[in-house]
């Protein structure tokens, strides 16, 4: 028999002491589903003829996301919490909660990806490899080409975010960070219009992102050096065992935080945010501002609370300073912005600051949180939910307000739209009020909880600064309302039109608006949900 031939020819080597790792495939199903869907999407790109690709991609993406959602929810409701895949991934309630949020919002963003605003083309470039302004590009546009690769890219990104939010090991976290960042870099460069800006945004995002992840990685290596393991639990044990915090641990902590804060968009690691938000295609901006923020914040809390809980007194100070800087810069610079996407970028920066207030507070079960109340984590999640709803809603609206040559994002061109389209004005008003944290919107509940959590964690002064600067931030949100309703449409607003929206877009818009309202009035179920999900497995 040939098999014996083969085996006889093998060098007689001693067997390694390796046992097969236990991988809980059932529990990890959401990840596998998304990964599988993304791979199938790539195959569709390769094998399906061009004209039927679009439908196939949307189908696969939506079905994949829904299946992952169902699987996540079933695991969550079954409270199947454990450290899986050799402790590399923590499937705990926060993970499931974050996954749910990520998937739900991604579903909304799929609608944005597919939004054609009454025309025939999405916001994505016809052929990314052509040189802007070249004959090839014109041909690609004329041939109605379009990149349907954006769907698999988005799915890979979602996959990375899900792993990132639930990773219990720094190396896994780093890999996940890159899995979700790399597709985003590419997506950024794929705007159909203003392609030079888009490419520029991608280069900036990429270079700074790569720098920050390298810094994160160095921090990871230092923490590994200090503790002998990449696992958060082991790092925590090693850190707690030492009476004083060693320099190497502190350096590692700072560098890891830098990487995470970059993704969150906190000052002084915020430089990329406005440019990238402006340059990227709007659906991608929406995706970035919502999903990246959720994943980044959850990752940050997991690393800080689980892995570096013992260093609380050290990182709280650092984070407090960053939070103040973020709030101040985000609010003040936002005041002078006149471009909607940049404005939303600064808004996103200041929101990151408000979120950091709660993260800094670190009011958790460990620091004496009572059952039935809420701590830092759940407050942050409620805040993020409200923020995400308003952000996605705003981006749907940005996709609607158009002029020849694409979206019209100059604030001045929005003048008077509130009057000619009262419902549009009402929706923008609602979202802006939610951003500003005016009561009866989701934004208010979020702000209330975030500042309460910060205060309970012993950072009353930080909450005060946050509150004072939310007034400043409120000013620029209100200015949008003001422009829409009361400013006379000037030269800039000529030939600005409100495009019709697809059904998917409408659904997303309405869900966002209703969600913002409902969450502002009856937030209890959501708070309870996140509250029950706020205990990290360690």
């Amino acid at each position: 028999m040939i098999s014996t031939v083969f085996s006889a020819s093998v060098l007689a080597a001693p067997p390694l002491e390796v046992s097969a790792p236990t991988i809980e495939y059932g529990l990890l199903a959401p990840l596998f589903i998304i990964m599988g869907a993304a791979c199938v999407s790539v195959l569709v790109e390769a094998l399906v003829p061009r004209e039927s690709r679009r439908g196939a991609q949307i189908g696969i993406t939506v079905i994949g996301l829904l299946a992952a959602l169902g699987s996540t929810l079933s695991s969550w409701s079954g409270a199947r919490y454990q450290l899986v895949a050799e402790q590399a991934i923590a499937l705990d309630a926060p993970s499931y909660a974050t996954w749910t949020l990520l998937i739900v919002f991604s579903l909304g963003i799929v609608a944005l990806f597919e939004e054609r605003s009454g025309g025939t083309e999405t916001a994505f470039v016809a052929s990314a490899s052509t040189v802007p302004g070249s004959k090839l590009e014109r041909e690609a546009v004329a041939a109605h080409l379009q990149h349907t690769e954006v769907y698999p890219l988005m799915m890979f990104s979602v996959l990375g975010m899900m792993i990132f939010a639930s990773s219990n090991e720094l190396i896994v976290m780093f890999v996940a960070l890159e899995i979700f960042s790399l597709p985003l870099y590419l997506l950024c460069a794929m705007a159909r219009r203003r392609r030079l800006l888009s490419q520029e945004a991608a280069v900036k995002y990429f270079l700074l992102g790569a720098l920050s992840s390298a810094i994160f990685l160095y921090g990871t290596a230092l923490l590994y050096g200090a503790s002998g393991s990449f696992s958060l639990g082991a790092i925590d044990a090693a850190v707690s065992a030492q009476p004083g915090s060693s320099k190497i641990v502190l350096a590692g902590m700072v560098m890891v935080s830098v990487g995470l804060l970059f993704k969150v968009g906190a000052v002084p690691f915020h430089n990329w945010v406005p440019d990238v938000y402006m340059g990227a295609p709007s659906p991608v901006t929406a995706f970035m501002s919502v999903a990246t923020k959720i994943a980044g914040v959850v990752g940050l809390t997991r690393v800080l609370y689980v892995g570096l809980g013992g260093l609380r007194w050290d990182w709280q100070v650092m984070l407090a300073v960053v939070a103040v800087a973020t709030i101040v810069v985000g609010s003040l610079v936002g005041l002078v912005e006149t471009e909607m996407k940049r404005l939303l970028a600064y808004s996103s920066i200041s929101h990151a600051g408000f979120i950091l207030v709660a993260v800094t507070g670190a009011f958790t079960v460990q620091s004496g949180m009572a059952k039935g109340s809420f701590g830092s984590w759940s407050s942050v999640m409620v805040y993020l939910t409200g923020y995400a709803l308003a952000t996605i809603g705003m981006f749907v609206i940005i996709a609607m307000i158009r002029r020849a040559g694409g979206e019209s994002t100059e604030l001045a061109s929005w003048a008077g739209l509130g009057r000619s389209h009262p419902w549009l004005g009402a929706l923008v008003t609602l979202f802006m009020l939610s951003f500003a944290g005016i009561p009866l919107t989701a934004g208010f509940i979020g702000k209330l909880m975030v500042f309460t959590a910060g205060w309970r964690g012993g950072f009353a002064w930080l909450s005060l600064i946050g509150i004072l600067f939310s007034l400043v931030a409120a000013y620029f949100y209100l200015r949008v309302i003001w422009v829409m309703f009361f400013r006379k449409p000037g030269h800039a607003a000529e030939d600005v039109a409100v495009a019709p929206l697809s059904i998917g877009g409408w659904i997303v818009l309405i869900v966002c608006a209703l969600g913002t309202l409902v969450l502002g009035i009856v937030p209890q179920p959501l708070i309870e949900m996140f509250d029950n999900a706020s205990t990290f497995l360690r």
Partner: protein
Amino acid sequence: MNPNDYLILSAILFAIGILGFLFRRNAIVAFMSVELMLNAVNLTMVTFSHVHGSLDGQIGAFFVMIVAAAEVVVGLAIIVTIFRSRRTTSVDDVNLMKY
């Protein structure tokens, strides 16, 4: 072997990477600086792996390598694209948004 030497070397490499990133205006050079930083991290990890007598650090280095490669692919794609449309890779020339 004295692990400190390796750690210091990797720290120096890392610092060179950061400085290169900050002070060189060419996107490709900046990007190569980042790659240098990643490799410095690899050295750190492998050194610590030796210190702790565990394989974790070496496996980590493997992952870093693969990520670095993926980053190269994506990053160079972006840089090449912008080079093709702008004919420059200087980060200072990439300034449409600074107004």
